[in-house]
């Protein structure tokens, strides 16, 4: 849907609040990121994210984060639309972000735009990585999915049948008493590892399953195997599983671009593997820049802008959060990108 140019907002505010990160970002009508301010809740070592504790953190930092995002470039920006992460994610966290966004939309008398957090990861990664119509690989704490765009929607070609890659790394790190974020800790330990230990390799068609691998890795830890070797083996086996599923999907879809997005996309070994797969099949590789891989306000502002320009807004009384919201349950008519 084309908007009257005079009515198109100049600035979009994006509020991210799905899990450990509370973020706010301003993006202009050209999609340029003006500010991107984020504050991440870090649980004590050995403990996972408690949804209520994370929500309390978001509540405390929210006004500071939003103020900083609005003030970023000298003069204070007044947003013309408020975009919020409506799901999927942790209920208590989602409600904090949604409540603040509703209040802002009412106070400013500006439209409210619901955003799917996973779609937003892909939108920001596509914008920053200059991708148009990719085979999208989304790897984070909430998603491990391979998707392509067809008939207005992302279609899932492969995904995890149990826990995500982010869950696997976080849960193992927690057991091994490594500090949060788990993925970063496992990656740095893995650099010292040399020996490949036997771990279950489970690929079903284009799907993967990681829970058996997690159990086996924890058992190796209990047996007293070297932590660097276990971390090295977890990465080698779990990433190879995903790389294989990506390769199969790439051959089936014949896409010419491979996008890698989400928090785990910051892992250098995973980037290297997916790049090898892409180039081996004549596709270009588009990894999300590291600074935009994790959850952030900019992804919500970026996706919210595209949604708004396609006519997506929600009246405050009908606005919602949806802790379970699949990547393939939302129309994304703005893809492929020009």
């Amino acid at each position, binding site marked *: 849907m084309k908007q009257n140019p005079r009515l198109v907002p100049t600035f979009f505010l994006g509020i991210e609040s799905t899990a450990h990160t509370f973020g706010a970002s301003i993006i202009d009508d050209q999609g340029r990121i003006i500010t991107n301010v984020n504050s991440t809740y870090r649980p004590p070592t050995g403990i996972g994210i408690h949804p209520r504790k994370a929500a309390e953190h978001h509540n405390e930092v929210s006004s500071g984060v939003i103020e900083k995002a609005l003030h970023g470039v000298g003069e204070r920006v007044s947003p013309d639309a408020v975009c919020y992460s409506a799901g999927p994610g942790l209920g208590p966290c989602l409600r904090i972000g949604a409540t603040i966004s509703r209040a802002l939309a009412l106070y400013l008398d500006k439209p409210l735009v619901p955003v799917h957090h996973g779609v937003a990861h892909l939108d920001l990664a596509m914008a920053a990585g200059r991708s148009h119509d990719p085979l999208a690989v989304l790897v984070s704490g909430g998603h491990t999915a391979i998707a392509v765009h067809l008939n207005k929607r992302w279609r899932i*070609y492969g995904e995890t049948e149990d826990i*995500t890659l982010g869950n696997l790394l976080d849960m193992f790190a927690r057991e091994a008493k490594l500090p949060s974020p788990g993925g970063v800790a496992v990656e740095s330990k893995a650099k010292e590892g040399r020996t*490949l230990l036997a771990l279950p*390799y489970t690929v079903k068609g*284009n799907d993967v399953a990681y829970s058996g691998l997690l159990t086996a890795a924890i058992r190796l830890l209990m047996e007293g195997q070297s932590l660097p070797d276990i971390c090295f083996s977890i990465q080698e086996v779990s990433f*190879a599983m995903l*790389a294989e599923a990506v390769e199969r999907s790439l*051959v089936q879809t014949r896409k010419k671009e491979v996008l890698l997005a989400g928090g785990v996309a910051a892992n250098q070994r995973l980037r*290297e593997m997916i790049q090898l797969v892409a180039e081996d099949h004549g596709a270009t590789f588009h990894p999300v820049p590291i600074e935009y891989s994790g959850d952030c306000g900019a992804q919500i502002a970026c996706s919210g802008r595209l949604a708004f320009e396609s006519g997506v807004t929600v009246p405050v009384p009908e606005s919602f959060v949806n802790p379970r919201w699949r990547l393939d349950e939302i129309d994304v008519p703005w893809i492929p990108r020009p």
Partner: protein
Amino acid sequence: MDSSTLDLQPLHRGAEADLFLSQLPPWKVVVKRRVRKAYRHEKLDASIRKERTIRESSAIRDGKVAGARLPSILGLDVERSTIIMTFIDGLLARNILDRMSNARRLALLEELGRQVGFLHSAGITHGDLTTSNIILPADEKPFMVDFGMARKSTDHEDHGSDLHLLQRSLIATHALDATSSLRRVAKGYREVVGEEMAKSSLRKAAEIARRGRYFAIR
């Protein structure tokens, strides 16, 4: 069998293997060679290639004995992760499904259901059942190929997984209506495996689909 002396003409490059055409008179044969993956740790790569080569050839053999339409295994070269089998002349279902008339497509889906039924009643799971792994010869009687992910199993979980993957490929690649297309697959499947087994496999398939992330109803 030593496959290194065969004269190989490139036929197709798959995700995990290269396919070549060759002659093993009187047969026209396909030589399937699993190749080293640069992204994979060498030790892991070697064990995966060996294991799958052996599993694939035995699954094809067993499936054929059970009555499914599959190529015939003519030779095995484990050292080079290579299988030699008869060549099936036809088109990929993936490439022609969207151009078929509704009636022909539904008839094909029903026949596919039967073929999967033969495999499952023989205790074999295909493991990668998509329209890219189905070849249609001129008579449109489908052949299933690529048993690289196959396994011996009588577990409903694995049977359901086959049906789930087929259904997802119909939705994701061909944007077909899930209900009507799966109904025809189920009809053929039920015919071969019987009411009871069909019921549990289909129930499992629906359950596996819901295991994906963030389904509202679990």
